[in-house]
């Protein structure tokens, strides 16, 4: 036998920290509840029976059990969709007053522009529903369900370019390397369905729009790797390398995994690397997914009127509409965090033409998803989020003509909307100034949004942490306030 068996993976320091803390915790527990220490009828702790997740989480009763995040990558123009600013039409073509910009930094794409002509929207705005929410004609379907929605018009972020901004929104840091929201959720709350991953990603096919997406946006960062998002693709192999190679059947596979399991167990005893457990967990998940994934991806059992609801596109695999339908099916199977990405919103030029295409791709399916969840009673515990990584400028990038203009990146304000469990419906939070440039009422920072999301899931964002390289990290780092005004 190995002679180094006893000190294989514990240093003297580790031993002392772990044992002393352990004894401390034990004595603390008995001080707080002397009778309870060895009692049988102790309160059931979440992780004792749930599928993974951490001890003590959820911290409080969750309002939301699962999240569908419809990420609009490239940053949709709030000024042409939700944030109605008649002043821009009145002042169309005039220069953005410097007092409004206040020295705000610009991207390299417009910082050299001689003038910043204000660009009023070319689309008609109307108030909809009982809540009187303003929406442009671009989203006729979503306009019909505004009474289900909660708009936040005062979102603001720190980044001004796509990659740092998406990374910031998805991981809480502009610098890559932190776990994404879905990974934190998977790590903290565990699974409700052992046959499917907790965190699934669906990307609309063929819509790059100049801005790439990286898989690190759904990466686990420093969390154990089974918590990373699993991307489902359209086509023959929804999850790559999931099917058995020719000549290998299910029994064979099971046999192989069982033996591998035994070997890896020994390996783990020997070197104690937690990634061994993570990898085995992923192998097992993949095995179960061999049956569960084809079932969920095969939408042939959906009736025609459901396809009609989501729109013609929903029959074409890989479209946003088809992904929305899949998202609903996954939510029904208790996948905790379902993240859709739809690219192509980055309209620096030709905005009026391009945004129409984008809205046609997304509007009907978004509204259908929310309506569909509602009629199934799933808005009871499902949250839907729609939004991009920042907003767009009120002035035109490039030449402003009567029927064309572009808009540059704008981090100082943007609009997102949510629907579903735990939040008030038919409300609008926050406001921007008449120029649609600065937030003037109830600013909501990206970290506040993240804190609120975790709160809805029953997690105190300040208490879900992971120690890495000597420091405890959390999704909201040292920031974030729950936006109580929108909680139902």
């Amino acid at each position: 036998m190995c002679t180094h068996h006893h000190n294989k993976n514990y240093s003297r320091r580790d031993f002392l920290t772990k044992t002393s803390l352990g004894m401390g915790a034990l004595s603390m527990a008995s001080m707080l509840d002397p009778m309870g220490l060895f009692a049988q009828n102790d309160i059931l702790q979440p992780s004792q029976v749930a599928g993974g997740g951490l001890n003590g989480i959820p911290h409080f009763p969750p309002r939301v059990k699962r999240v569908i995040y419809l990420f609009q990558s490239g940053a949709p123009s709030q000024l042409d969709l939700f944030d109605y600013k008649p002043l821009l039409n009145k002042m169309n073509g005039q220069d953005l007053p410097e007092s409004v910009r206040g020295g705000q930094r610009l991207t390299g794409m417009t910082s050299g522009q001689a003038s910043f002509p204000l660009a009023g929207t070319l689309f008609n705005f109307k108030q909809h529903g009982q809540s009187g929410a303003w929406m442009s004609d671009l989203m006729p379907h979503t306009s019909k369900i505004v009474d289900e929605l909660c708009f936040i018009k005062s979102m603001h972020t720190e980044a001004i370019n796509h990659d740092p901004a998406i990374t910031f929104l998805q991981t809480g840091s502009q610098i890559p390397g932190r776990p994404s929201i879905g990974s934190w959720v998977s790590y903290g709350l565990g699974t409700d369905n052992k046959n499917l991953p907790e965190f699934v990603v669906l990307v609309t096919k063929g819509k790059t729009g100049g801005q790439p997406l990286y898989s690190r946006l759904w990466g686990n960062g420093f969390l154990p790797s089974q918590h990373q998002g699993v991307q489902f693709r359209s086509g023959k192999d929804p999850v790559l390398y999931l099917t058995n190679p020719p000549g290998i059947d299910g029994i064979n596979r099971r046999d192989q995994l069982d033996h591998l399991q035994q070997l890896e167990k020994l390996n783990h005893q020997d070197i104690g690397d937690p990634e061994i457990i993570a990898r085995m967990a992923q192998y097992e998940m993949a095995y179960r997914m061999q049956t569960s994934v084809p079932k969920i991806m095969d939408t042939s059992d959906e009736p025609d009127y459901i396809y009609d609801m989501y729109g013609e596109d929903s029959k074409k695999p890989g479209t946003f509409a088809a992904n929305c339908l899949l998202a609903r099916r996954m939510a029904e199977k208790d996948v905790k965090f379902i993240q859709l990405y739809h690219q192509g919103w980055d309209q620096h030029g030709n905005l009026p033409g391009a945004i129409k295409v984008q809205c046609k791709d997304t509007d009907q399916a978004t509204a259908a998803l929310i309506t569909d969840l509602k009629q199934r009673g799933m808005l009871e515990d499902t949250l839907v989020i729609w939004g991009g990584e920042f907003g767009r400028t009120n002035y035109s990038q490039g030449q402003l003509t009567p029927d064309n203009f572009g808009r540059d990146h704008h981090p100082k304000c943007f609009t997102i909307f949510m629907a579903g469990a735990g939040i008030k419906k038919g409300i609008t939070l926050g406001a921007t100034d008449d120029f649609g440039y600065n937030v003037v009422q109830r600013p909501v920072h990206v970290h506040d949004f993240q804190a609120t999301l975790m709160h809805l899931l029953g997690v105190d964002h300040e208490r879900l942490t992971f120690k890495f390289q000597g420091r405890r990290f959390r999704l909201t780092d040292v920031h974030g306030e729950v936006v109580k005004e929108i909680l139902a």
Partner: protein
Amino acid sequence: MLALDIVTFFGRFHPLLVHLPIGFLLLAILIEWYQGKKEGKENSKLITYAWLLGAISANLAALCGWLLAENGEYAEASIFWHRWLGIGLAALASFGWWIKQSSKHFPKLVNNSITYLVIGLILVEGHLGGTLTHGEDYLLAYAPESLQKLFGEEKKENSLPQLENIDSVVVYRDMIYPMLATKCIGCHNNEEQRGGLNMYLADLFMEGGENGPVIAPGNTPESEIFRRVTLRQENEKFMPPNGEPLSYDEIKLLEWWINNGADFEKELAGHEIPISMQKVIQRLFGLDTQPKPWYESVKIPAADSLRLKSLVDEGFSVKPLGYGNPLLDIKFSGGKLTMAKLTELADSGENITWLSLAGTDIKDEWVSIISKFPNLTRLELQKTRVSDDSVELLGALEHLESLNLYGTNVTDSCLSFIKNMTQLRRVYLWGTGVTYKNAKALQNERTDLEVEIGVSSE
């Protein structure tokens, strides 16, 4: 009272008279300075006359001021300095006249100090008087912010405090009083009681003003305060006479408080708050007064963890609602549901608040087991074969808030049972035998219940 009326009558000439000495005395000083420039000439008689007029009017103003203070509208502490500096100014003006008319020559020092002292006193005294009449923040209310900061003037927030937790809220202390403080108490307080009304102290507020009580508990039409804030704004009796009138929500809040007995001690939690008032309170104070979900108020011992473990073995997914919370969120997800398994669930029935048996083989007869779970608030039975009989049994669940029946065999007959489930807030009936027309009828009848009938499959 007649004597006091006469006193007040003369007293009210004070605001008129005070402006005279200011003018006369300043005029006297200006002429004096002008003459001082042209040396050698003898002092003009004009100066003496101006000082005389200044002295007389100052004394008259002081006298009227004294009489005005007699009516008790002003607290002694707040007028102390105004009163005695005013008398001092009157005396100084008289002394100044005496010097000017005297043929003796006084040293320059005496002349100059009287001049500067009078100017200083006029400024200070005038400001004190203005503050008494118009209020503390009158002068600087519209000054540029930097100037306000210089004088330590806090920008007064005209908004109401935002409340967080219903438990600690006393209706008068935390809601009514802060509202009155922004609109009324500026003129009805310890220092100043316009119309004899002090709203700063609860017992004096109840006592009312010079025309008697302003509040008739339980009776808003008879309450003077309510009448005055709801008069036409052009009416001279309208309150507040200047500044922003009470908003609709504030008037509603006042009305609600008076109708509920105008209690000064009662806590908000002790009130039953109608839905319209819930919205008013939400808008004014950002406070959510909707009754808490049942699962937040229930206190029971935790379920036996060994029993729960065996439930997990039977195919139930079992989760506590939160850390340290005895209530459970249970879903059946393993294989075939049997009556035996449900019976086992009943052992922990008290602890179950969310239960999902969606898509299982549950039968109508078994529902009687579930209908005995006292703390059940959310029940999912969608995509099962349960029928109207089950809904009738579920009527026994007193705290059920959400019931999902989509894709089941229920029909229009279940609506009468649902109508009687008074705590129910949401029911899902899409894809059942329930017709659109009848679902809408139920919706119209029960506005506190969301009836979700979904899109039609036709």
